[in-house]
C-alpha cells in the first residue's frame, strides 16, 4: 500500500504492507527516534503526535494514518522541546534513554494542555510511558523543571 504522510513537517510518500503499524513505517523510513519496546501499546517508547494527539504508534495501523500529520521527538518545535530536553538532562532523568524520546513527547503534550501541572497530573500523564532505569523520580522532577523554565521564558 502507498500513502503520503506529513512527517515532521515534510510530505513523504511511503509504501507499506496492510498489516504494518505506523511505528513500522516510521522506523523503515529512518525515523529511528521512535522506539519499539513492546508492540502492545503498553510502554510508550513509540509515542508520536498524530494530528497533534499523543498516540502509541504501534497501535495505529499505517493504513489508518493516511494523509496524517505525524510528529516525532525530532519534529517538535525547538522552542518548546528544547527546554524539556534540557530539563531531562539537567534533572538526571536520562539513564539508558530508550524511553526518553517518548517521555519528552508525553511531557510536551502535557505542557501544551496544562503548563503548570501538579505532581499528580504529571504522574498521570506519564502513566503510559514505562521506564525501568530511573524509578521515575528524576523524570517527574524534569517535567516540573521544564514547566518552570517554560513559564519563566514566556
Amino acid at each position, binding site marked *: 500500500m502507498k500513502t503520503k504522510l506529513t512527517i515532521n513537517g515534510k510530505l513523504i510518500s511511503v509504501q507499506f504492507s496492510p498489516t504494518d503499524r505506523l511505528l513500522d513505517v516510521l522506523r523503515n523510513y529512518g525515523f529511528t527516534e521512535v522506539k519499539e519496546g513492546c508492540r502492545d501499546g503498553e510502554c510508550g517508547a513509540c509515542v508520536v503526535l498524530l494530528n497533534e494527539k499523543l498516540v502509541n504508534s504501534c497501535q495505529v495501523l499505517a493504513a489508518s494514518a493516511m494523509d496524517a500529520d505525524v510528529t516525532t521527538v525530532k519534529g517538535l518545535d525547538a522552542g518548546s522541546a528544547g527546554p524539556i530536553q534540557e530539563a531531562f538532562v539537567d534533572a538526571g532523568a536520562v539513564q539508558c534513554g*530508550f524511553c526518553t524520546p517518548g517521555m519528552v513527547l508525553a511531557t510536551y503534550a502535557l505542557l501544551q494542555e496544562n503548563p503548570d501541572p501538579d505532581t499528580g497530573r504529571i504522574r498521570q500523564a506519564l502513566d503510559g510511558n514505562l521506564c525501568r532505569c530511573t524509578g521515575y523520580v528524576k523524570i517527574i522532577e524534569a517535567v516540573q523543571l521544564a514547566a518552570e523554565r517554560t513559564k519563566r521564558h514566556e
Partner: protein
Amino acid sequence: MNKNFNTVGKSVRKIDSLSLAKGNAKFTDDFPLKDALHISILYSPHAHAEILSIDTTDALAIPGVVRIFHHENVPAVLHTTAGQGFPEPSAYDSRMFDSKMRFVGDRVAAVAAETKEAAEAAINAIRVEYRELEPLFDPEKAMEPGAPRLHGDDAKMPIPVKYDSSRNLAAEVEIKFGDLEKGFQEADFVLEDTFYTQYAAHCAIEPHTSAAYLDERDRLVIITATQVPFHARRIVSRVLDIPIRDIRVIKPRIGGGFGGKQEVFLEQLVGLTTWSTGRSCKIVLTRPEVFVSSRTRHPMRVTLKTGVKADGEITALEMDALMNNGAYGSHALTVLSNGGSKVLPLFNKIENIRFIGHTVYTNLPVGGAYRGYGATQTYFALNQHLDMIARKTKQDLVSFIKKWHIKEGETSPVFQALGEGKEGVAQIIKSCKLDECLDKGATAIGWYEKRNKRLKNGPDKVRGVGLSVSMQGSGIPKIDMGAASMKMNEDGSFNLYIGATDLGTGSDTILAQIAAETLDVPVENIIVLSSDTDLTPFDVGAYASSTTYISGAAVKKCAAKIREQVLGVAAKILNTDAGGLTVRESLVTDTKTGKSVSYSDICTYAMYSNDQFQIQASASNIAAESPPPFIAQFAEVEVDTRTGKIRVLKFVSAVDCGQPINPALAEGQVEGAVVNGLSYALTEDYLFDSKGRMTNPRFWDFKIFTAKDLPEMETILVDSYEETGPYGAKSVGEIAINGPIPAIANAVFDATGVRLYETPFTPERVWKRLRKEKYPGS
C-alpha cells in the same frame, strides 16, 4: 583523604543524555543495515520433549526464506550462555540448537529470510514431531530419585565444583564455621522460617537485539545490546569456531540491562547467519520472547534458622537455599553463592554459621544475572529474622542492627570462604557508614514516631513502618579486570578508550569524570569511546557492581600516567624539572618562576617540535578486594485489611556508596533499583499454566510499576570515603534492590502483626495471610 575535588562529586551532565533526549543516539536496532536478513525463532511448545523429526521443506519453499537452522545442521558445541569470565563458573549445558526441549520457549529452529513476514511464515511452516517427556516443575522434587532428568552426562562444569546432571543438580555450595549444634544449644530461643521469592523479568525497555554484517575485509562485525562485549566475542568465537581476530563486537547505546543482557544467546545466532550466508542480519526479540526465552531472576526458597540469646545475640545461623535455575544452568553457582557471600558478612559476630545451597534444573524459564544477584532473595529472610529477634527481645530494630552489624576495621570469615566459583578473598572493612544510614533514614521516615503505633487511616486501613539493611560488593576481587587507554590531542583534550560497558548507568560519564579529575580538565575535554572490541582495551563488562570501582581505578591509573607525561613535556618547555610544577585547569605552572604553559601548547610541542611522541598511556586494574556499599531502607505502608492491598506511602534509602563520583547518577541508580524492587515485591510475577507455559508475558500483565504507582521517595547519600576506591568510590548499581521486599514485609508486620513469607505481596496473598492469622475484619 583529599576530598577537595574539581569534577568528582559533581552532578555533571551525563555525556550522552542530550543526544538521547533528542532521539539522535543510536541503539542496536537503529543502525541502517542494507538488505539485512530478518531472523525469527521457532520455540518449543512443550516443557520437556524430544524432537523426533524436523521437516523444513515447506518452510524453505516460501519465497524469501534464505536459511533455516536447527539441531541437524548446526554444530552442537556445548557452552554456557552466561556472559562471565573464563572459564565460566556456569555449566556447559547449552547448544545453539538441541534435539531435546527443556522448557516452553526453548529454541527449536531459526529462520533467516529477506523479510520479517517471510521469516514468520516459515516459522509456521516448519513441521516438528515431538515426543513429550514428563516435565519437572517443582524444584523441591528435582533431586528426588526418579525425577525427570533434564541434561545428559555430557553436560559439564568447566571448573572443578560440585555438579551432577543425573540429579538435576546445577550447583551446590556449603560453608560452615564454628559449632552449629553448640550454637543452637546456647540459644534461649530458635526461630525457623521459610521464605519464597518468585520468578521476575528485567524489563529493560529495549528488547534484546543483535545485528551482524561482514566488513570490507570479511570480518564478522556484531552490533549488539550486551553488557559483556568481550565475553560475547569469546563465546561466539568458541561456539561458531571463528577466530577471535575475525570478530568485532560493538555495543552502541543500550536500552537497559539489569543483568538480562549479560547473557550471550543472540550474538551466536546473528554470527552464524552472517558467517554462513555472507549477508547482514538482525534479530529483535518481541516482548513475549524476552519474557519467556531470555533470562529471569531465579526463584528461591530460603529456610533460615537462627538461635538467639535473650539479649538478642545470635548464637547460630543456618541458611538453606534452594534455587530454581529452570532449564539451563546460567549463573547457577554464583547467584547461589552470592545469596550467602553478600549477606552473611553483614552480621559478622555470629560465630556458628552454616550456609547450604542447592541449585536445580526444572522445565521452566532460565534464570540468569539480575541486579542484586541472589542477595536480594536471601535478604528477605535475614531481615525478617532481624525484625523478629528485635521484637522478641524487646529492642528497637535500629539499635539492634547497630550493635551487631560489621564495622570499620572488622572482617568476616565468609569473605574468604565464599567466592565466585572458588574461594573468596579475605578483606577488612575500611568504610562502613551504616549507622549514619540508619540514623538519617530513621529520621526521614519518622521511625520513632510511627513504629509500633498501628496508626489507623479509616476503619480498615492501618499503617506501619519497616526496615531492611543490606550490603553488596564492588566487583569480583582478583577476577574482574578493567582496562583503559588514553591519548592527548593538541587542543588539550583527551581520548579515553574503555572496554567498560555503559548500559544507561552513566559509566561513560563517571569514567570521564575520573579522568578529568586526574588531569584537571573539564569533563568536556574527555572524549569517551567505549565497548568496541577492536578499538578499546578489555573489560569484563558491566556486572557485579564493578565498573566504578574496578574500571574507574584503571582510568585513574591511566590518566595519572598521562599526567606524568604532560608534566615531563612541560618541564622541558619551561626548562625546569617536573617536581616544581603544578596543574590548574589545563595550565601547568612552574611554582618558582610563575611561568605557565597550556595543555594545548604541551601537546602541540610533543607532536611537532622536538623528540616528537604521542602522549598516550594504558592501564589495567584488578581489585584486591571488594569493598561493600551499605544501605538502610525504610518503608511506610498502609494495609487495607479488608482487601489485603498494600500501599507503600513512603520509601527511604540511605546509602553508603563511598564518595559518589556523580551524585545525581548515584541517586538515579538507587531510585531505579528501589522502584524495580517495589514492583518485584508487590506485583511482578510469572504465571504458569499446568503445561509450564507463561500466561502473562506482557508489561501490564506481569505488572511493572508506572509513574502512577510511585510512593513518596527519598534517597540519601551519606558522607563516606573508601580509601581503596578511585577518589573514594564504592559501588551503587545493585544494592538498593535488596530492601523493598523485606522493608515492606517488616512494615506490614508493624501494621498488622502478620508476617509475609512469599513474594509478591499481592492483595490476595496478603488477605489470605490476614485471614489465616485471624486478623479482625479480614
